[in-house]
């Protein structure tokens, strides 16, 4: 639906379309993941050099606590962005799911059924997005900005100023909230992070090794050609949104249990971090390009950086600035290389004066 207006990076780069230009871009893609790997090493070295506590099991644990639930949302987001769409409602769904759990708990439900309902809410919300984007054919950015507001609004109506568990509420079951304080048995890793790693493996296999994954890439690069090859573009998109809804709701449950309480505004604004992680991981916002290992590396880099800065006791606001700059660089560096090339080409062949185009008048003879 957006195919005619979007200028894909492939059109903008390598104007000669020659083989060398194309494989050059492929090499560039490989280099992106390599670059991330190098960056990860640098961040770890930086962390280790600033604090003797950095290379410890507890760092790894808290890294997972801090970024695990965000990273879980980044996985379906990767698949959605691969198809050239986006889902900005993930963080609101996280909040709505937590609020659902909280409200039901407040009304005396037990935890497991409450979590089940929260997942169901994720399914319904995701289906709503999917229906509007895939079946009705509305632009996903508009639809999900709408549902971003909608989901958060419903959460606010449900909980209002209530923080659950509040006065008079039972505490959340300790067996479940322990995921916020103790790692998975036999490892230093947080539960949410382990879930992320398992899901990342599943998504990686799905994206890079299965017919469905190949279909996603084709849809992202050329939706019409995908349709003509018998790929059920609309159906796949619908289910991707459903999956995103459910996994966001799941992330909401993990977050709720980790902090053992919930308010309606949990995770506000987090959708931008999620999108940023995916793009930082090398996935093209235009769809069709990117790898899941890249996204996993992006998660690890941002997680480690956050830990290193926290241990240095850097002001959280400064931390935001640092991550922001890093993310900006991730967007600027690839296109910056292109701009630099163009600039160099221009200085090599200086332009002549071009009076005829500069002047408004050039009467037809």
């Amino acid at each position, binding site marked *: 639906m957006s195919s005619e207006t979007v200028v894909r990076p492939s059109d903008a780069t390598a104007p*000669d379309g020659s083989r060398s230009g194309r494989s050059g871009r492929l090499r560039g893609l490989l280099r992106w993941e390599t670059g991330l790997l190098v960056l990860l090493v640098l961040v770890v070295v930086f962390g280790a050099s600033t604090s003797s506590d950095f290379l410890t099991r507890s760092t790894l644990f808290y890294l997972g606590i801090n970024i695990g639930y965000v990273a879980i949302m980044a996985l379906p987001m990767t698949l959605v962005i691969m198809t050239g769409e986006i889902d900005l409602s993930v963080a609101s769904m996280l909040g709505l799911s937590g609020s659902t759990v909280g409200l039901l708990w407040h009304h005396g439900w037990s935890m497991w059924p409450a979590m089940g309902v929260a997942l169901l809410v994720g399914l319904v919300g995701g289906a709503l997005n999917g229906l509007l984007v895939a079946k009705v054919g509305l632009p996903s950015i508009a639809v999900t900005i709408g549902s971003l507001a909608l989901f958060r609004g419903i959460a606010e109506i449900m909980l209002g100023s209530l923080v659950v568990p509040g006065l008079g509420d039972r505490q959340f079951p300790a067996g479940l909230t322990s995921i916020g304080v103790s790692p998975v048995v036999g490892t230093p890793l947080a539960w949410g992070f382990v879930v992320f790693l398992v899901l990342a493996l599943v998504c990686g296999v799905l994206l890079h090794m299965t*017919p469905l994954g190949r279909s996603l890439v084709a849809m992202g690069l050329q939706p*019409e050609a995908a*349709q*003509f090859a*018998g790929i059920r573009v609309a159906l796949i998109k619908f289910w991707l949104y459903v999956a995103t809804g459910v996994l966001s709701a799941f992330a909401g449950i993990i977050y709720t249990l980790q902090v053992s309480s919930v308010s309606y505004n949990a995770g506000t604004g987090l959708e931008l971090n999620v999108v940023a992680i995916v793009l930082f991981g090398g996935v093209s916002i235009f769809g069709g390009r990117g790898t899941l290992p890249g996204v996993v590396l992006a998660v690890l880099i941002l997680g480690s950086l956050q830990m290193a800065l926290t241990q240095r006791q850097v002001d959280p606001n400064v931390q935001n600035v640092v991550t922001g700059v890093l993310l900006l660089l991730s967007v600027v560096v690839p296109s910056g290389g292109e701009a630099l090339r163009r600039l160099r080409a221009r200085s090599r062949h200086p332009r002549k004066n071009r009076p005829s185009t500069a002047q408004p008048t050039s009467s*037809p003879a």
Partner: protein
Amino acid sequence: MGSESGAPLLEVREVTKSFGAVAAVQGVSFELYGGEAHALLGENGAGKSTIVKMLAGVHRPDSGDVVVEGAPQTFAGPADARDAGISIIYQEPSLFPDLSVAENIFVGRLPLLAGRRLDRAGMVRRSTEIFARLGVALDPTRPARGLSVADQQLVEIAKALSLNAKVLVMDEPTAALTNVEVDRLFEVIATLRRGGAAVLFISHRLEEVFASCQRVTIMRDGRLVRTATIDEVTVEDIIRSMVGRDLEQLFPKTETTPREVVLDVQGLSSEGVFVDVDLQVRAGEIVALAGLVGAGRTEVARAVFGIDRRTAGTVRLLGKELPNGRPRKAMAAGMALVPEDRRQQGLVMDMPIDQNVALASLNELSRVGLILRSRETRLATEWARRLQLKFGRMRGPVSTLSGGNQQKVVLGKWLARAPRLLIIDEPTRGIDVGTKAEVHRILDELVAGGMAVLMISSELPEVLGMADRVLVLCEGRVTGDFTRAEADEDSIMRAAAGLSATGAA
């Protein structure tokens, strides 16, 4: 040619251009004189496009010169080429749909009045003047949205004139035009010539070259073969020069005996597009869907395959009724569709060749849900061999191939599924003569092997040469049904224009 006075307007002198290891153009020279229409001919991959891009300022020659009116030029970009008086008219112009025709002509240098107000009246007046000079009636105030491709080209030509272009390069301008529009374009070209401009005309349709050009330059494999005046050469000469060998037979059609009905379409309708279309295709025959552009032929194919939903009618493949709007079911039943638009619909241009071949067979290439890359590459290699695909790397993007070879990839992708019915929409559009004959030979072999083929084609020689039966569509209705023996140019054109009902089913 009488107006070839003295010095050439444009000279291409010994230009050479390589991309990596591929030498696209090697030491090519030719001249363009004011007042001539000059055809640049060659198979796809011969280097024509590279020449055009050098004239357009997109590529710079590695060596050699582009000389305009005696002065060697160094184009840093398209703007320089334009300022030197060279304008390129592309096959599919890109206008701004929401701007008016006049604004499109003057975009980038809109005339202003005092107070930075747009001089709309001035623009319209000057546009009208240019159109009058070209002898065409186009309203400068209407928006560009909805203009036919032919009219869009006229806007580009008008833009070129408003820039005082002396050399107009037309890159396959007629590929998407109807016959009437082609005739009008030729008149415009004649007008331009009389005005002293030089036109470099690129087309795969040789009859057009003979109808409109005074001289031809023929390229093969990046080198110049010859430049000649049009009365020195024949169609056969040109083809031999382009291909480097004789084409044994233009349409290698084997006589076959049609067998059982494979595709049976009854009362197919799509509201506002086509009505009550009946058609049958048997195993071992080629049925051509002929008609003018816009008659609804492509839409019928899309509805049969299930890309679009039909509003009425049934589609049966081998007796089995197909559900509405489900391409996957049609594929499973044995149907394949090679679409009209290779670059948008047929291929994922940035995907590797092998992945494009495999795209319609992914499940068949998988075990326990995982694609076996080795099987995928083997399948692609197999079809590349059978279709004699010319390619660099199997895992290189399909966009690096020439048009004809891209079409072979689309064919391979569908033939890999061993379909019973192949629908093929404009099988040879934009393909060079050599590959064209190959595609025809492939179709002939498929049909001889028992496949049913439904072929949509706007090229009458192709229809008459390849089809066992011809169905003609006019404004969404079947207006003619001819056997191979009955079909001739006249009867098909009459039916396509809706003039007679002879032989209607």
